[in-house]
C-alpha cells in the first residue's frame, strides 16, 4: 500500500520536471508574470472591475504605444534617467572615495566615520523639507537628495570590504615588499571588490527609489511626474506604464552590475545554489 503511494509521488515529480524541461531555461523567469497577466486579462476583460481601478493589460499596452509614439514617454524617461544617473554618479563616487580613505587610514576613520554613521541613521525623507527650503524644488535639490541616498551604501560597503581584507595576505604582501600603492591596487581593492560592487547595486536601488520621491515633490517632467499627473486625471493605465518603466529600467541597471560581478569576480568560490 505504502509502496504504491511512493510510486505515485515519484511519477508526479517526473511529470512536473517534464513540462518545465520543455520550456527553454532562459524563459523560466517569465512563467509567473505571463500566467498572472493572462489571469489579469481574463478577469478585467470580462468587465468585473472598473477601468480606473484596474485597466486591462491590453489597455496598458495601448497607452504604452501611444505615449511612445508621441515621444512623451522618452522625454520623461530621459529626464528621470538623467536625475537618477547624476545623483548615483555623484553620491557613488564620493562614497567610493571616502570609503577608500576611511578604510585605508585610521585617522580619517576616527575623524570622519562617526559623523557619517550618525548622518546615515537620519531618515532621508525627513530632510526633504530642508532641501526644498534651501534649494527650492529644482534639479539641484533632486540630484542632491538622490546623491545623498546613493552615497551611504557605497561608502559603508567599500569600508567593510577594505577592512575584511585577509591579514594573512597582507603578510604575504609585506614579505614581497609591495609598495604602498601596490598594496592598495593589487591587494586591498581586489579584496574589497565584491563588497564595493554590492554597495553599487544597493546604491542604484536607492537612487531609483529616491528618484520617485524627488519627482513627486514637485516637477513638470519625469516618469514620477507622469505617474502623479495621470493619477490626478484617473488615467490608471498611464500609472501602470510608469510603474512598469521603473521596474524594467531598475532591473536593467541591476543586471548591468551583476554582469560586472560575473566578469570581475570569476575567481570567487562560493555557494552557487
Amino acid at each position, binding site marked *: 500500500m505504502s509502496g504504491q503511494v511512493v510510486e505515485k509521488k515519484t511519477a508526479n515529480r517526473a511529470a512536473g520536471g517534464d513540462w518545465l524541461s520543455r520550456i527553454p531555461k532562459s524563459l523560466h523567469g517569465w512563467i509567473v508574470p505571463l500566467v498572472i497577466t493572462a489571469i489579469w486579462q481574463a478577469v478585467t476583460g470580462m468587465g468585473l472591475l472598473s477601468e480606473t481601478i484596474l485597466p486591462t493589460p491590453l489597455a496598458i499596452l495601448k497607452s504604452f504605444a501611444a505615449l511612445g509614439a508621441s515621444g512623451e514617454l522618452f522625454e520623461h524617461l530621459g529626464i528621470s534617467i538623467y536625475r537618477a544617473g547624476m545623483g548615483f554618479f555623484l553620491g557613488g563616487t564620493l562614497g567610493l572615495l571616502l570609503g577608500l580613505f576611511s578604510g585605508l587610514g585610521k585617522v580619517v576613520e576616527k575623524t570622519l566615520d562617526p559623523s557619517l554613521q550618525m548622518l546615515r541613521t537620519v531618515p532621508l525623507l525627513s530632510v526633504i523639507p530642508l532641501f526644498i527650503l534651501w534649494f527650492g524644488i529644482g534639479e539641484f535639490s533632486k540630484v542632491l537628495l538622490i546623491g545623498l541616498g546613493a552615497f551611504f551604501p557605497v561608502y559603508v560597503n567599500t569600508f567593510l570590504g577594505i577592512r575584511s581584507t585577509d591579514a*594573512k*595576505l597582507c*603578510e*604575504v*604582501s*609585506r*614579505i*614581497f*615588499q*609591495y*609598495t604602498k600603492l*601596490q598594496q592598495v591596487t*593589487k*591587494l586591498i581593492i*581586489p*579584496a574589497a*571588490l565584491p563588497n564595493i560592487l554590492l554597495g553599487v547595486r544597493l546604491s542604484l536601488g536607492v537612487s531609483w527609489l529616491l528618484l520617485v520621491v524627488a519627482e513627486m515633490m514637485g516637477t513638470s517632467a519625469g516618469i514620477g511626474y507622469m505617474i502623479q499627473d495621470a493619477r490626478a486625471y484617473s488615467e490608471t493605465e498611464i500609472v501602470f506604464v510608469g510603474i512598469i518603466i521603473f521596474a524594467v529600467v531598475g532591473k536593467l541597471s541591476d543586471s548591468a552590475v551583476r554582469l560586472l560581478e560575473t566578469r570581475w*569576480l*570569476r*575567481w*570567487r*568560490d562560493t555557494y552557487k545554489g
Partner: protein
Amino acid sequence: MAAEMLVVQELNKTFATPTGDVIALNRIGLQVKQGEFITIIGPSGCGKSTLLKIVAGLDTRYEGTVLLNGKPIDGPSIEKGFIFQEPRLFPWLTVEKNIAANLSLRKPEVRKRVDELIELVRLKGFEQSYPRELSGGMAQRVAIARALLRSPDILLLDEPFGALDAFTRSHMQEVLLDIWQKNRTTMLFVTHDLDEAVFLGERVVIMNPRPGHIRHILPINLPYPRKRSGNAFQELRHRVLSEFEKVEGPDIDEGAGI
C-alpha cells in the same frame, strides 16, 4: 668551510600575556651555511614557528643577534622567502599571475622565469587556473614557485605540508628536494613530522618547549634520495625521537610513516 649565511646567537623572545610573561625562545643558537637544508622539529609550543617568523623579519621584537649575510634582520624582504602552512594565494589571480604577484608578466625576463618555475613545480597546463580550482598540493606548489621567483637567499618553510594528505605530502617532499638540488637555495624547514625531518634535512634541529630551546642538533649523514625503510634511516629516526622521550610524553607526529 663555506661561510655562515644565517647566524642566530643568544636569541631570546618573550611574549607578554595577561597572566605574565611567557618565554617563547630561550638562548637559541644556530648557524646555517649557504645551501644547507635544515629541518627544525619539535612539539607544538616549542617556539619553532616563532623562530622562523623572527628570521623572516615578520617579528622584530626579540633580544639577541640574528644575522643574515652578516646584516641584522630588521623586517621582511624578498631575500627571505616564506612558505606558510596555507598556500596564501591571491584568490583573484590565476596561477601565473599569483607567481608573478607584484611583478609584471609583460616583462620578458619575468615571463621566462615564471614559465621555468611552473615547469619546475610541475604545474604545466594550470597557468590560467584560479586557486579555487587547485588541490592543496598544487596550491602549495604555486606558493613555492612564487617564493622562488624572487630568488631568495633562504627559503623559510613553516610546516608547509602539514595540511596535506600523506601521499601528497611525500610527493611534495620529493618536489622540494628536487628544487633544492637544482637551485641550492638554503632551506629552513619547520615540521612536527619525524619522518619529514629526517627525510629532508642535512641537519635536524630538535627543539623542546617550556621554555622553547634547542635540545640537540643532529647531522643526518645519509645520501639523497633517502630510503625511509632503510636501517640507517630508522636508526636516526629513533635517535631524534629519543631526544623527546627524555623530557616528557612527546606530542610529536609519529604517524604518516611513508
